[in-house]
């Protein structure tokens, strides 16, 4: 992978290239942006370029583009995945640390990993190339002590080293961390690119468009949903059914629909656990529930957009009928209120509230019952 092949991140790469051309490349960067938009790919291609010993530069009037040669020893070793000056730090390294030897990787990035794989190593001189590159994945999972341990290194690392933090939630990092790094923001991937990538995988075009819009420009997420195959019916079928029943939804159907949603969620999480056996069941269950709730949000958000005259941007473009029917029943402000309501339910998912109760409460509320006041 070289920098040229990365699409939709021209702004981010351009900013890096300009800094490089001006000779002002900082030693610590945060690559910030939603999950699945190509941060890691970019970081790897960038590292490859930095490490390359016969770097190419294409002269252009506005922006000279630096890229790796792909032929030198460094590049070949990098492609082979064993470059001695490139270090990828991730939470899965935990079992291999001295302090936490053999322990399983947890949700967060423990200090042992950061200390042993980054802080203690930055002083090492490069072996093969002119510099060393450290890429830390999922920096949003750094806990407070890990981040504090990083501070000194981030502020004044050795001259030969570059540190890149990949982070989907840059605003969650400590202000002390943020102030020591330069933040490069990664935007969402364009819809046509995602649709093209999905259709290449054999996904139907209308479906591809739906997933592209639902995932809001995250290629990884769209791919995940579109290729997931739960038992019984595909995710897309589930979504169609959900939208249809929401459009016709009435108070007396609430409990039935909630049970159906619970069933759908468990089918989706079941399919996930086949793909990712190492992730915990609870985590997958939550992800599935949140996915379903996001589909609900999309429905009401579409209604809102319809009322605001932005009918061409709706997510459920394949099911305009039910959306329009719903739009006749509720106005923009009501749908805005309902969206806020669903978000509250999404928060409950993270707070380990019983899934069944969440769906029931949500649907009762959506039906406008005053039994449970929000």
């Amino acid at each position, binding site marked *: 992978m070289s920098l040229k092949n990365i699409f939709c991140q021209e702004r981010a790469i351009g*900013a890096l290239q*300009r*800094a490089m*051309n*001006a000779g*002002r*490349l*900082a*030693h610590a960067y945060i690559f910030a*942006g939603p999950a699945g938009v190509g941060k890691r790919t970019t970081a790897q291609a960038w590292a490859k370029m930095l490490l390359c010993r016969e770097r190419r530069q294409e002269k252009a009037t506005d922006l000279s583009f630096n890229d790796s040669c792909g032929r030198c020893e460094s590049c070949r070793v990098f492609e082979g995945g064993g470059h001695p000056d490139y270090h990828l730090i991730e939470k899965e390294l935990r079992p291999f640390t001295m302090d936490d030897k053999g322990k399983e990787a947890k949700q967060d990035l423990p200090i042992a990993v950061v200390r042993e794989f980054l802080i203690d190593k930055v002083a090492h001189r490069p072996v093969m190339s002119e510099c060393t590159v450290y890429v830390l994945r999922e920096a949003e999972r750094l806990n407070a*002590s890990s981040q*504090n*341990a990083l*501070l*000194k290194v981030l502020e*004044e690392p050795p001259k*030969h080293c570059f540190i890149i933090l990949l982070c989907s939630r840059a*605003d*969650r990092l400590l*202000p*002390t961390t943020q*102030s*020591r*790094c*330069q*933040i*490069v*923001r*990664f*935007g969402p991937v364009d819809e046509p690119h995602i649709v093209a990538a999905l259709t290449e995988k054999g996904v139907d075009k209308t479906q591809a468009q739906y997933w592209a819009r639902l995932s*809001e420009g995250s290629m990884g997420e769209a791919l995940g949903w579109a290729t997931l195959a739960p038992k019984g019916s595909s995710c897309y079928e589930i979504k169609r059914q959900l939208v249809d029943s929401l459009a016709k939804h009435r108070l007396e159907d609430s409990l039935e629909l909630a049970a159906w949603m619970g069933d759908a969620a468990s089918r989706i999480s079941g399919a996930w656990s086949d793909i990712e056996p190492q992730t915990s069941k609870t985590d997958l269950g939550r992800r599935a529930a*949140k996915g379903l709730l*996001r589909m609900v949000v999309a429905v*009401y*958000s579409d209604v*809102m*957009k*319809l*009322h*605001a*005259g932005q*009918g061409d*941007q709706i997510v459920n473009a394949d099911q*305009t009928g039910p959306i*329009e029917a719903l*739009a*006749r*029943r509720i*106005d*923009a*402000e*009501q749908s*805005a209120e309902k*969206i*806020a309501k669903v*978000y509250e339910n999404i*928060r409950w998912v993270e707070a380990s509230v019983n899934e069944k109760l969440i769906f029931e409460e949500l649907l009762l509320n959506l*039906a*406008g019952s*005053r039994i449970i006041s929000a």
Partner: protein
Amino acid sequence: MAYTVLARRFRSQTFDDVVGQDAVAQTLKNAIKMGRVAHAYLFTGTRGVGKTTMARILAKALNCLEADGPTTTPCLKCDSCVSVNAGEDIDVIEIDGASNTGVDDVRQLRQNAIYRPARARYKVYIIDEVHMLSTQAFNALLKILEEPPDHVKFIFATTEPNKVLPTIQSRCQRFDFGAIDPAVIGRQLAGVLKSEKITFEDDVIVALSRLANGSMRDGLSLLDQVISAGVEPLTVALLEEALGQPSRQKICELAERIGQHDAAAVLGALDALLKTGQTAVQIIDALIDVVRDLIVIQSTNAASDLLVLTSEERKTMAALAGLFDTPGLIYNITTLEKLRWTIKNSDNPRALLEASMLRLALSEHFIGLENVLARLEATGGGASAGGGLKKNAPPELKAPGAFSPRPQEKAPDAGPFPSKMTAPRDADALPVQETGRMIAGEVTAESVRNAWGKMTQALAENNGMTARFLEDATVAGLEGNLLRLRFAKSAALAMSHCQSRTETLEAFFTKALGQAVRLAFEASDNGAPAETAAKSAAPGAKMDKSTRQKALSDPAVQLLLTGLDAKVTDIEELKTLSPEEVQDADLSSEGET
């Protein structure tokens, strides 16, 4: 090839260089001059205000080899000064408190501290990020911190003094480093740019010092990022592009749309912002900044020193401030602040952001209490007071596909007393339903009066609340197109409600009467409704059921009814609603025996 960032290159070297911390610098200088340097200092303050810098300067000042004793002006040339700057002096030991957190690290420090310095006067321990030390580590420090050897000095630096044990704090001299004034940051940045020989527009400095948010390092890091774009001169547009900051202009535009209650445009402006890679939190933060500035403008003026704005921005903001009223802004800022938390903790906050912005745009203006009073008084006098209360027009359906204009059934959660958000909407938003002409023959005041009940019922189908209020009105007269409605003085609320919906009502009556109608409202002076006699409804229809029952079941009334074989034709309440008087029934006996 590695480049040293500005924040490191322009780290201040002497006490006089340090910007924005004059008090601290002066105190330390005096302490050195008077030979009263304490053995332990605790420097606190937010990121990038000069804690580590000051600690290093102090270390240099204590140890400079050029002078005979501690000096306020370290030479910066001797071995000691140079190696302190590089962070590798053997007598100035800089420890990262966050990675050496354990009690063992402190034990080691204690063991080494007893040895005399190698070449300088003092052994200086600088412990940065000291808040991360464990409790045991802190406690292990206590003894040596209280009575260290003469040659040992401690300097602690931290951003979170609350995590430093009180027993530690009481053994140190604590210096709080304040946030740096934007103007000072601006001056320093301008100086840096000059010495780097980079041309710039003055507005960039203002924008940068605002973004720096009181931290010098933030300012310099941001400046670095802007410079690294490699374009000269530096402009605000370049800055927003390079930093991925939401463009101030676009945020102002968003605020303007909210102020104009234009729902569709609000969503459009949001979409434009999100497309450039801004996160929802960034947008909220920027919007909070703008709203804050608007509040400042409204309470002082656009020239206030409390605003960090360019002259151009001051003008646009002043114009923007006219769209809002202060209570409304305060409501907005609290809503945004609440929203910020939820959005920060949500994975895909876009829809929530859009929904909340829409609600802000559609929410009603706030009206001050005095305005309400003024309005009430005005309506009492019969003057029209529409104005501020009038809500913006709700978004119309512009969607593709044929829509029936309005929900057929009333929104399920609009209960008998709709909340503030929905109440006016009920009346205003709903276009009057297809209402056929309701009066046969000539339209006169009398015929309108006769059909009044029918018409209010028809109105109630769509505008329940207005219809109920309209029942309190009587038709005072019909002159040409002008329909005069009279309200009892006690029904001032009903009158003001109907008045604020004049347009809807006029449209309704125009249809109902089959001719153009304009409305005029008047308050009747005598308390009793003027022409209630015109009512043809069931006895006491205007009262609620229980009152009516009570009146009818009263023994005195019963006696009259049975004894005289009378029939109740009407029940009327007296003005004062004491229960005894409620029973006052207007009886007419028919067919007396």
